[in-house]
């Protein structure tokens, strides 16, 4: 894994805009940063692929464990939604995608920092933008990236399951979310849904028809299936949340993903697999209390404190040598929290990359890298492309 510098393409902003990336610059600084790229050897990407499958296997086992041991309160799931979640799991409702974020120090296995299982973004960048960049800059080289093909496959599967129409919803006013959904909608249209079978709807415009007892779109059509870029933990607490229990709508991501997008997962994975030498190699010790962390790892253990429902790197505190070395603000400061052993991100001259490994329909199929000058990756951390060097 090497970090390389390269002059950006002339008019790169216009180029990526034509490919759908309108949010390439944040606060005057490039979010899509092609002045840098990372190069990997095939063996390194094989290791990342293996880590992704191993973590997915552990996560699926964790869902079953939560159900078997009724651990829903650890995930702040209120009792009325337990059966709803269990049903989505037992009927094997299909997951479209997810992204594992790994810290990867040279000569060590990739370590799971967290799993963006419900509403991952940076998808367009990973699937499309960096691929076209590769074709422009290194046409003879390759990339760990078959995200687009896997997405096509999964939408073809859904069509084969008899879902005649898919709606796609995102929150109004957030361009990144909106374009992520539009990309997925584009892929679904190409997978057989066509332009009228894959329709967009603001999350705020989802209706509830009291007489028909169904969610509806703006034309009063029942929502038979909808991809929502809106987290389950918010949906179940909002006004229309109780209707989930009676509605006939098929949701993507499925409801069981609410257990995997919650950072309580990190503590559960360590509880389940911390003693397994092979599987624990991909995990960082994590606990539901600071006391437990210090009991297990020692009183001077360095750690990162994360709210179990935080998003985009908000309200994270890193403690090293007994003092706070990094801290972010946000609206999730009330907790509850998990405490994860601090594992330093690799330092490339003051740049700290996190590797996001994409899973689509169960396939590890690509990578996107976010880097920052802070050791905590946040919403504005830069996306940088990669190549397979050998």
């Amino acid at each position, binding site marked *: 894994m090497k970090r390389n510098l390269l002059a950006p393409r002339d008019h790169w902003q216009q180029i990526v*805009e034509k490919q759908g990336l309108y949010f390439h610059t944040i606060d005057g600084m490039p979010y899509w940063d092609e002045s840098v790229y990372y190069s990997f050897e095939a063996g390194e990407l*094989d290791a990342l692929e293996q880590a992704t499958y191993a973590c997915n296997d552990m996560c699926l086992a964790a869902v079953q464990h939560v159900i078997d041991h009724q651990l829903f309160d650890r995930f702040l799931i209120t009792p009325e939604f337990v059966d709803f979640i269990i049903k989505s799991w037992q009927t094997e409702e299909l997951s479209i995608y997810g992204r594992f974020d790994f810290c990867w120090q040279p000569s060590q296995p990739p370590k799971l920092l967290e799993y963006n299982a*419900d509403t991952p*973004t940076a998808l367009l960048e990973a699937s499309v933008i960096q691929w076209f960049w590769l074709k422009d800059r290194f046409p003879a080289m390759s990339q760990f990236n078959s995200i687009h093909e896997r997405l096509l496959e999964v939408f073809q599967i859904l069509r084969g399951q008899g879902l005649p129409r898919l709606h796609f919803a995102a929150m109004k006013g957030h361009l990144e979310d909106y374009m992520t959904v539009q*990309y997925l909608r584009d892929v679904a249209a190409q997978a057989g849904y066509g332009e*009228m079978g894959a329709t967009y709807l603001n999350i705020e415009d989802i209706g*509830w028809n009291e007489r028909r007892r169904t969610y509806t779109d*703006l034309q009063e059509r029942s929502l038979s299936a909808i991809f929502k870029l809106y987290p389950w933990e918010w949906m179940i*607490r*909002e006004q229309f949340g109780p209707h989930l229990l009676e509605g006939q709508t098929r949701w993507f991501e499925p409801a069981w993903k609410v257990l995997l997008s919650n950072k309580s997962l990190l503590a559960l994975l360590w509880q389940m697999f911390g003693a397994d030498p092979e599987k624990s190699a991909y995990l960082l010790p994590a606990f539901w209390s600071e006391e437990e962390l210090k009991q297990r790892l020692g009183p001077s253990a360095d750690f990162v404190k994360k709210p179990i429902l935080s998003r985009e790197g908000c309200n994270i505190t890193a403690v090293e040598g007994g003092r706070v070395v990094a801290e972010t603000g946000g609206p999730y400061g009330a907790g509850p929290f998990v405490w994860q052993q601090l594992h330093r991100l690799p330092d490339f001259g003051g740049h700290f990359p996190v590797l996001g490994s994409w899973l689509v329909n169960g396939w590890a199929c690509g990578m996107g890298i976010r880097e920052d000058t802070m050791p905590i990756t946040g919403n504005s951390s830069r996306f940088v492309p990669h190549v397979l060097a050998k």
Partner: protein
Amino acid sequence: MKLTQTIHLSLLGSALVVAGCSRTEGDDKKDDDKDKGRGHGHSTYTHAWFPRYYGGSGVRSTTPIPSSPASSRGGFGSTGHATAGPAGT
């Protein structure tokens, strides 16, 4: 490790798609009224970069509206707006 060979995009890359990001239900109704005035059921556009065309953000179709009472709306989205950040991670 399978690698991507080709990517075709139909929808992305159009400024009109982006314009849909901040559209409201009211905007859609206004457009519907305009469409009716022009005598066709849904708005379309083209973009030189991509061969196909799509409607804007709102649903555009000639599917008949059921005669049941209208749905209530706005029951999802409040938490996201309260936190003032994107829903994606």
